[in-house]
């Protein structure tokens, strides 16, 4: 069995890479992808700890996270499509409609 610690470190690294993606990238679609990466890091943590404490509730939580992520991606992408229709760009630096 692979030690629990290794999985924890891997999930921390994936979450951190997602954070860096959100902070550095400016295409709205890539930012959404980075958020998905962060969700996956958290999911890995849930499954790892479900194995560690011998309780399947952690895996059920991952099931719900996947369902919410699917809904979130559908709504987020359709917002981006509308944004592209209205502004002709998905660069978040150009999108400042609600900025005083």
């Amino acid at each position, binding site marked *: 069995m692979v030690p629990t610690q290794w*999985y924890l470190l891997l999930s921390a690294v994936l979450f951190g*890479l997602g*954070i860096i993606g959100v902070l550095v990238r400016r*295409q709205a679609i890539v930012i959404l*992808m980075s958020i998905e990466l962060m969700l996956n890091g958290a999911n890995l943590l849930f499954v790892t700890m479900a194995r560690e404490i011998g309780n399947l509730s952690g895996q059920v939580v*991952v*099931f719900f996270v*996947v369902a919410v992520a699917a809904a979130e991606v559908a*709504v987020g992408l359709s917002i981006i*499509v509308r944004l592209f229709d209205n502004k002709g760009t998905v660069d978040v630096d150009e999108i400042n409609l609600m900025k005083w």
Partner: protein
Amino acid sequence: MQPAYGVTFGVSAAIAVLAAIMMITRRNAVHSAVWLAVCFSAIGVLYLTLQAPFIAVLQITIYAGAIMVLFLFVVMLLNVAAPEGRDPLRVIAGLGIVLGGVFTTGLGLAFACVTTSADDAALARTEGTVEEVGKVLFADYVFAFEFVSVLLVAAMVGVIVLGVRRRERGPSGSEGGR
């Protein structure tokens, strides 16, 4: 079984981290999406090494399948494959990398302090098959499960409303008020 698990973990983890790095560094959004699909598949293999076959199948079909197809469709629909221009605020991007690195280091240090007591026999006891996960899902979480369907319907309605194109000020005028 011991070395096989270790090798599978090492290879999958390396692929996942590498694909994640490629995802956030590629300037072309299509390349980013494909690298993210690779990363999701590697994480699916990791779920198998954690004795979670149900979650692994979920990961491959929903994340690497459905969600990535959605991303690729939108990227190609919008034709935003053109790379981002030169960042006028390089300092801000560097600051983002530093902040993310600091956060990851802190998180890693905190996780390194977690004491794990379970031995191999205890770790091998929970097998997240469809049957076992289903028992927990429909016994303890049945209310939340039903509410997920409400959430999905709400998301579906929201996407349809957002997707309807209004043409009040269109040049033809024949499609107004839809």
